[in-house]
């Protein structure tokens, strides 16, 4: 939030202890279609969590179940000790930003923000003052009297956030909140949304299909795929230690190489011994695995280095300005290496594997 914005958030500047959100054995079927299966999550109170995954993976369904807009087929949703599973949406104490924003076109901006207070019978003067306070929080102090149709996409997005926060909800839920904005605005809003969340301290869940958005905003990332949770963890952990091939290929870019575990801390990749990254449960010795290596953790050398390295030849070079992307053919495979470059097509090179070790994924 830029200077000049008000300092007291909906919580009145006091960050109270927020209860954890617990999801137990959750499943959802629509007729014969399985939308969600075996979801178990514990989201710390006050944190910003991103549900990320490709479209149709069940992330929006999970958010709608947390909001109370869908009823799960199996499992429970708990906020602290309170079982929310059968509590209807209007008694759940959630604030939600919808993908379409769902602003009410027949009401002014201020009336939209104050809608929840109106439903609760708060007097008009009080609720409009509160609406103004929230509009200042999202840096739109002068639009209260406007119609929704008179706002730009970015402004609507902020109004939707202000409206969702008006009742100081226990949970702040956002369904693809930035997908309708253009790239530049989106980046700015990512930072702003993160700051806003820190200020109000409300447990926040953001659904996004954009893994970069999730990685840059979240305290905790929940990677979803195939209607189940694939991995939960802080962004860096997910990036560095993907739990399976799905996560490794969905989050960031990865090179995949077939390998065989030869020791508790080493694998053999294309006839070369490479160390396994520590703190990762290694598959049993002798098993066939897939090794995932990030393009930026590979190094290109002219001569054979001391550490583990694979010999190959450069097939394609792409200068992206900040980095150079070099493609190297190693045996039957093409590896992508991003770094400083300095090679041209046809050069014979050594691709040095990371000293910190590689990640082995069950094949």
């Amino acid at each position: 939030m830029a200077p000049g914005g008000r300092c007291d958030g909906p919580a009145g500047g006091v960050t109270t202890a927020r209860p954890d959100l617990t999801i137990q054995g959750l499943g959802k079927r629509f007729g014969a279609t399985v939308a969600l299966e075996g979801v178990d999550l514990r989201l710390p109170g006050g944190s910003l969590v991103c549900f990320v995954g490709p479209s149709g993976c069940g992330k929006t369904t999970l958010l709608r179940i947390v909001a109370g807009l869908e009823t799960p087929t199996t499992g429970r949703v708990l906020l602290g000790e309170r079982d929310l599973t059968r509590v209807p949406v209007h008694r759940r104490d959630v604030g939600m930003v919808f993908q379409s924003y769902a602003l009410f076109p027949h009401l002014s901006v201020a009336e939209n923000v104050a809608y929840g207070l109106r439903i609760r019978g708060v007097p008009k003067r009080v609720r409009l003052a509160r609406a103004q306070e929230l509009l200042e929080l999202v840096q739109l102090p002068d639009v209260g009297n406007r119609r929704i149709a008179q706002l730009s996409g970015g402004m609507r997005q902020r109004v939707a956030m202000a409206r969702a926060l008006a009742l100081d909800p226990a949970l702040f839920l956002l369904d693809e909140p930035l997908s309708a904005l253009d790239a530049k605005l989106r980046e700015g809003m990512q930072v702003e949304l993160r700051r806003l969340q820190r200020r109000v301290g409300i447990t926040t869940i953001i659904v996004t299909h954009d893994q970069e958005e999730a990685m840059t905003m979240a305290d905790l990332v929940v990677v979803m795929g195939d209607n189940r949770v694939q991995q939960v963890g802080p962004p860096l952990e997910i990036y560095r230690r993907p739990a399976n091939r799905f996560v490794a290929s969905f989050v960031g870019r990865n090179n995949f190489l077939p390998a065989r575990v030869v020791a508790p801390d080493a694998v053999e990749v294309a006839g070369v011994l490479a160390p396994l990254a520590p703190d990762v449960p290694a598959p049993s010795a002798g098993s066939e695995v897939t090794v995932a290596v990030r393009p930026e953790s590979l190094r290109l050398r002219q001569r054979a280095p001391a550490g583990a390295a694979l010999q190959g030849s450069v097939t394609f070079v792409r200068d992206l300005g900040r980095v150079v992307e070099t493609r190297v053919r190693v045996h039957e495979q093409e590896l992508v290496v991003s770094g400083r470059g300095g090679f041209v097509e046809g050069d014979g090179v050594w691709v040095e594997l990371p000293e910190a070790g590689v990640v082995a994924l069950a094949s």
Partner: protein
Amino acid sequence: MALTNGARSERPVLGPDERDGPWPHVLLAWPTLALTLLFVVPLGIIAALGFFRRIQAGFFEVGFVLDNYARALDAFHLERLSVSVLLALAATLIILLVAVPFTFLLTRRPRRAQVPYLVLVLASLSLSEVIIAFAWSLLLSRTSGISNLLARVGLLDAPVAWSPGLWAVLLAFVFVALPLAILSLYPTFSRLDQELPEAAGTMGAAPVVGFVTVVLPLVRRAVAATGALVFIFVLGAYVIPQTLGRPAQWTIPVHITDQAIMKNHLPLAASLAIVLLVVSSLIAAAIVLLGAGRFPRVALPRRAP
């Protein structure tokens, strides 16, 4: 024009008429002509007929008398007119109370689940008022109606006659005009962003509260237009009140039919028709204006760009 074009070889700025050529006028002329021949001319004849002089033999002669309009506005006919209007308003209210929530809930179901309901609604539209009136007079009769079935299973002591009567008329009115109301509301409701009532729910509005504070203000114009449509449709019905009603429920259209066909008093029938037309147009206009009321520029909800 052609010369100018040739000389300057730049694209001329054309008005809409020039751009489209003479075709739109030709195409528009046909419906205008049809409307004039089939609607304006007969209406003019009926309006004029109301001033003609009736002859005892059962016909009329051209003239200009005010007797017929005076009779159309006498105490008896005014009382019948108010009964007709009240009946039609009551039927309209009942129909809207059923059609609005029904259409709202229908359009929130997946498309495929909506189809059987829409087919049913369309199918019942294909029934004529006459068939509906006679079918209900059978179903509500003492001798062969539903009450026999209810008596057989023990829900009634003995079969009863539910027709003729006020409720039989209202029931048939609802049956005949409900599909019309649903089809008229359907486009507006299916364009309504489904996330709007959900958003109201997340802010603490119970489903009914959300419906009243968010959905209704957004569809009030469509609801009013549907109300006007249903009102006019029901007010013009004459087989239903005649077949299913007692004389107390005989509406102006029943009396128009009676005068025109039974009593051969065409000038009185014509003047009654004109009075009914004026009154129903005024009330329908009032209903539409009422719906447009507080928010004259309510835009349809759109997805954010």
